[in-house]
């Protein structure tokens, strides 16, 4: 943490960046996002296990962009989000400085290539617990899964906290906000909730960087991240493609291979 704070002080003092987007202590033992603009306030920055939020989400916020060039205290998921956003032309090279924090170390990553290398060196599979979680649902039969999700979605409020928390949901006008026709129902009834969650999962397919913020943000504890994770696995298994590893290139659903599998197609 000290390394992070002194790095932050240095970056602000030398005006290399105008703002450090990082974590500070919040309420209820949580961490919260903080936007440090003065070197003197760098001591507010913390980094520990409570720092989970994917701060890359703030790149879609105009008030944050207006603060100037930012350094972002980046979790591994945030680094992947930055690369995916770069691949989707939402961030340009040089617009931000990523500060990868690990233990007591701070690794400044100024270019996308540096971020790519950093991510690649630490890349790995899901943890045993994460795999188990997904497998638990697959082990349920079709009917049990159906009942599970029906119950889950019956509690959805359509507050769109999942969408707001996701760094890859940056559309200035979301599909649900278009009427003529109102394609996804606005009211939070069971069918509308199912359709919204399906839409969200599909629009993130091939793009989600698996930060889990959607599930964390949900005020009624729906394990939304499972939908995204299931599709991450599908995209990787079938197309061999993973988001958030390169600052260039099309994502899985905006490209194709002539020999993509089609054993289910008659």
């Amino acid at each position, binding site marked *: 943490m000290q390394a992070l704070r002194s790095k932050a002080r240095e970056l602000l003092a030398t005006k290399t960046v105008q703002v450090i987007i990082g974590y500070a202590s919040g309420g209820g033992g949580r961490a919260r996002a903080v936007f440090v603009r003065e070197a003197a306030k760098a001591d507010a920055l913390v980094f520990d296990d409570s720092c989970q939020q994917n701060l890359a989400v703030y790149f879609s916020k105009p008030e944050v962009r207006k603060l100037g060039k930012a350094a972002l205290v980046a979790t591994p998921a945030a680094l992947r989000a930055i690369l995916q956003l770069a691949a989707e032309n939402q961030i340009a090279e040089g617009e931000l400085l990523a500060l990868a924090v690990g233990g007591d170390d701070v690794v400044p990553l100024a270019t996308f290539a540096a971020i790519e290398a950093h991510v690649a060196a630490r890349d790995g599979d899901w943890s045993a617990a994460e795999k188990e979680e997904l497998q638990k649902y697959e082990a349920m039969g079709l009917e049990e899964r159906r009942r599970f999700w029906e119950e889950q979605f019956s509690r959805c409020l359509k507050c769109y906290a999942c969408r707001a928390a996701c760094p890859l949901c940056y559309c200035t006008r979301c*599909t649900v906000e278009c009427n003529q026709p109102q394609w996804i129902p606005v009211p939070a009834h069971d069918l*509308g909730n199912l359709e919204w969650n399906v839409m969200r999962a599909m629009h993130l397919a091939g793009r989600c960087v698996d930060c889990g913020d959607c599930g964390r943000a949900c005020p009624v504890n729906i394990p939304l991240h499972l939908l995204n994770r299931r599709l991450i696995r599908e995209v990787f298994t079938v197309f061999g493609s993973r988001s958030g590893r390169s600052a260039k290139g099309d994502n899985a*659903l905006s490209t194709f291979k002539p020999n993509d599998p089609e054993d289910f197609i008659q």
Partner: protein
Amino acid sequence: MARIGVFICHCGENISATVDVVKVAAEAARIPGVAHSVEYKYMCSDPGQQLVKNAIKEKNLTGVVVAACSPRMHEPTFRRACAEAGLNPFLCEMANIREHCSWVHEKGEATTQKALDIVRTLVAKVKKNKALEPIKVPVTKTALVLGGGIAGIQAALDIANSGHKVILVEQAPSIGGHMSQLSETFPTLDCSQCILTPRMVEVAQHPNITLHSYSELESLDGFIGNFKARIRRKARGLDEKLCTGCGLCMQKCPTRKIPSEFDAGLGLRPAIYVPFPQAVPNKPVIDREHCTYYRTGKCRLCEKVCPTQAIRFGQEDEIVEAEVGAVVVATGFDIKHGDFFPEYGYGKHQDVIDGLQFERLASASGPTLGEIRRPSDGKVPETVVFIACAGSRDPAKGIEYCSKICCMYTAKHAMLYRHKVHHGKPYVFYMDIRAGGKMYEEFVRRAMEEDGVQYVRGRVSRVYERNGRLVVKGVDTLLGARPLEIEADLVVLATAGVANAGAEELAQKLHVSYDAHKFYAEAHPKLRPVETNTAGIFLAGACQAPKDIPESVAQSTARRRRFILPASAASSARAPAPTRPSRRRSSAAATGRWSRPWPRSTRACARAAAPAWPSAAPNRSTSRASPTRRSMPRFWPCWNEVNAMADFNPKIVAFVCNWCTYAGADLTGTSRMKYAPQVSIVRFPCTGRIDFMLLLKAFAGGADGIIVSGCHPNDCHYSSGNFHARRRWVVFRGLMDFLGIDVRRVQFSWVSAAEGAKWAQLVNETTDRIRRLGPFADYQRLRGQGVG
């Protein structure tokens, strides 16, 4: 307020024999918003169309539904009629109650109710249609011709002579193509170069033609009338403005023993070379692969001797950009080299050669100056065996088609040999003689009867060497399969005509379709042979299929006409896409593509503005709200009654693409094949346009099962729509299964326009499966749940 006119056609008895059209018309009158509902024997006839026009005027109709045959049949007919009556043509829809109903189901109440249901669906859709106007786009009056063989040359000259500008791009250092390699042409035995070179010169000198030789197409963007081409002019290694074509460099070049491509490997050329003396342009090119300077850094002799100091060793490729209105693809073909039949010994024996090599031997400017000599020892062959069908018409070895020109050129080769070697003995082993053109049969007869060419009907099993001669073992089937052995001095194989090496890559750059053999696909084999499915890109010559010179020239001229007419207009009116662009959509919308929030990339916009459906242009990155979303059958009242009749009558919705599966379903109808009536077909421009949410909307609307079907991969009318759809389906299935939705309720399929039988089978099997799975009550129960 909607005032829809519904017109039910009897189609003679085609519809009325199984559908109670009077009842449908009466019931349709009761649909809310329908102001006029009649039936008539032949709606497409003049009086029938007049009924529509009168009703539009008298009843002030705001939309028209003609329930009759397939829209692929008569949609333009009725749209024109509506336009003539003052109703915007896009407010007219056709309800397909013939191919998709009366022809495929048994006579009875259920069929009548299905027809009524189809009418209801289209009435609901047309209420939401918007009046559309054709888009006017300015047209660039320049054509890009790819390929400088006879077809390309002819196309370029025709277009240039009509007053339009042409950019001709040829890959080789000179234009001329294979025709410049030929000695004499059938059936006239004209000297090939004599008739070709004047045209080559004309191309070079024509004020309207810009020639880029030793060049390739780098990329093509845009759409008809407004293409942007990038052309790579490869580095010749000299300044063309300074080079006079004196040829001194070629004479002095010390590296002289390179097999000449123009001479099909039978002759040699230097590293700096002009492919043949009559080359256009008559400027050499430095072959960097063999040039001593590029390989070792030494020499540069040409540079020293060049009188105008034109040599430029450091020259780099140059990219030229051009705006063109249309593209003609005339990239030609090649013949198959190599040991397709190892038993014939090509490549093993020097004296087994292919057709192009024989042409070079026979050619006055060839490696033997027109004398037929054996490549091995230079002797004049006394006996020559010509083997026809040495690779074509062979399904077992992958070339199942006929290469068309070989019978004729084999006869020609045999005749040329006899003309040059009076005492020579030519034999031709053949399977059939294909000589269908004007004067063609007479030509072959002449070879047999006047020039003494011995034709043997039978195949050759082996060619091997014995004492310096080649033994050809064959069989004479007209003499009862009598085995035959001929000792020949030279064997000429008529190998298959195949697509050029770079054909696939080029096709993908152009987004034109091609078949399994990489020949380019025409829009319609009979009715639109010179166009591709991509508007503004035309075909000429053998890149489409093996063909001879008269055909290539004819096709080029025809293609010219197709280009001139649209180009003559100051602007082009394009049929607008019936789907409306959605505002400010971004990210992975319906097509699964991402893009910046706004604006989208130029290329995407260009394609989006392209004449999309129903004419042809790749349409991939649009995210458009389709009126078909709103046409979801919202009510199934007739099915409730039908339900009461049977234990469970599954409701199945089929989302199909217009170009393949819808047409395939039409074919099922035309073939009068019967299938289960529970399916309701919804037409889309492309599977790539089918939003995955539609599947859920269908289930919510009461469907128990869904079919999604479109063109086979590589056949997509928009080149890649189905490829994108395929990926989306994989992912969506995974999600559905994870959410507990039984994926067996959704059947994905590729059904082509030719697979009428497959459509019927698919529907029947799917209906059966859904019947066994039962009603999708769990999903339909969600409707209304959670509302206080």
